[in-house]
């Protein structure tokens, strides 16, 4: 094919990048604009930077609690799903279990259903059925960790399967010959070799749990409220605290951005369930 001049492409992509980045920049602009200046003529250029909204968010004990909940729930869920997913993949990969391919496919069907459909049944089950005496899973961190498994555990299994399948079986067998127990084989032979795949899975499941809103909004009230639901509390019919809302959004955005820079290449494969390699 003939060579084309690169500069039109560069200009084109500068324009596209501007369209991509500007809304995020605007979020930042609102978050550092003091409230009395908000309703004057919107300006693209920052007049001055005011961190008051950020200090207000950090100084608010309720929001700090939500942030802690978000952190604990997404970390707990990421560790749980990655561990369970790893065990499940090892079982599917190394054992001759009857109907294992059906089980493998069944796991993904749990993720395909629209989450809105499960709001009501999960709410009813958590309040009325899954209860021991007075204790229910509603509005508890452990409850949210388990509920998030419905979409993260299938994801973990589907992304880890190729990793575990890729570890040669001869390594396991050699360890068995040397007299290692099955548990030792998993933890000391297979686990170290799967570390890169496990890390990507851990990070992406963490982000999915951190970003979740709908289930958290319906299945928590206060004790296990997450940052994303806290954000929606600042958008009310009587008036929205725009600056605070922007600042909370930035706080929710930062971990995802850090993660983005680490696993950027794996994101597309993750979002398309491995149908396309990024």
């Amino acid at each position: 094919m003939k060579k084309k001049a690169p500069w039109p492409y560069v200009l084109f992509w500068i324009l596209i990048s501007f369209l991509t980045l500007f809304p995020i920049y605007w979020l930042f602009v609102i978050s550092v604009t003091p409230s009395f200046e908000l309703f004057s003529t919107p300006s693209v250029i920052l007049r001055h930077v005011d961190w008051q909204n950020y200090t207000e968010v950090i100084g608010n004990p309720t929001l700090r609690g939500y942030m802690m909940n978000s952190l604990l729930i997404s970390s707990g869920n990421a560790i749980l799903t990655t561990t369970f997913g790893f065990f499940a993949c090892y079982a599917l990969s190394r054992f001759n279990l009857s109907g294992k391919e059906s089980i493998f496919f069944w796991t993904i069907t749990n993720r395909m259903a629209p989450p809105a459909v499960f709001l009501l049944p999960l709410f009813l089950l958590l309040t009325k059925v899954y209860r021991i005496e007075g204790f229910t899973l509603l509005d508890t961190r452990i409850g949210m960790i388990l509920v998030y498994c419905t979409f993260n555990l299938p994801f973990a299994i589907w992304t880890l399967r190729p990793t575990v399948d890729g570890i040669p079986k001869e390594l396991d067998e050699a360890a068995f010959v040397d007299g290692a127990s099955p548990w030792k084989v998993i933890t000391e032979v297979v686990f170290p070799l799967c570390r890169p795949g496990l890390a990507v899975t851990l990070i992406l499941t963490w982000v999915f749990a951190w970003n979740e809103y709908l289930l958290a909004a319906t299945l928590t009230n206060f004790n296990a409220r997450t940052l994303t639901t806290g954000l929606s509390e600042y958008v009310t019919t009587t008036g929205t605290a725009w600056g605070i809302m922007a600042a909370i959004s930035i706080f929710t955005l930062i971990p995802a951005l850090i993660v983005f820079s680490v696993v950027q290449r794996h994101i597309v494969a993750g979002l398309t369930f491995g149908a396309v390699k990024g």
Partner: protein
Amino acid sequence: MKSNTFGWILLAPTIVVLFFFGVLPFLYVVYVSFHQWNPFAANPNMIYNAAGNFRQIVFDSAFLASLGVTVAFVFFAVLTEVVVGYVLAQAFMSDFPGKAFFRTIHTLPLIIAPIIVGSIWKLMTTPSIGIIPHLLQSSVGFDLNIGQSAAAAFIITITMDIWHWTPLVTLTLIAALVSLPPDPFEQAQIDGAGKWQIFWHITLPMIAPAVMATVFIRLMDALRIVDEVLMLTGGGPGSATRYIGVHIFREVFPRTNYGYGSAISVVVLYLTIVVCWLLYTGMLAPRKPRKG
């Protein structure tokens, strides 16, 4: 040799968790959907109602309106994303400086939480705060008000979805374009084929499976959109952007009419399965190589 028991033990946590939080909710919602159940009604117990709830759905104008706007939203959003995504993917095919950098920036919206995307676009479009209404007002004198104009709210939700998800389409199509063999293109150029001829007769048939897979993934995601719209418009003005997930969250869930709410959930789930199955068999299954 290892016994299979250990394999089942390893699989057990996954099966147990998915059973209690995936399968049981599904069975439970189907069970409740055949009952009348409102804990705050005169009779707070579950009463068997046969298909009564489902009969009610057929005449539920709010539900049917919600289905209608959902279909319109999904159609316009996914169509635009695929066309724009293809153009952008083609623009990535030649070499130019800073390619990796631009690609990284373009991927950025994918990782942002849907609710944050909603809040970003709310700040962009709310009159007197947002930059878009301000620019439209001062340049062409158009008054954009997503709180009042149904059309404006509808278009802004589509714009938001395009901003959020076009990168996914671009990146999947780049992966498809990169893997194409160069020979047919060189041959076509030697034979004197024009740009459009090459696109219609060579590129499009060759990347069709990838395009279909992308459309399938995007359709499934677009059908379940909730968070962004809830944040941006709350389903309004009126019910202009009350897409099906938003409808369940705002209208069905807050009412304590559990029986009817379950029936709606079942119908939505059923429709989603049917749509996905139709798409899957119609678009993905005939992945045979075309005869040239």
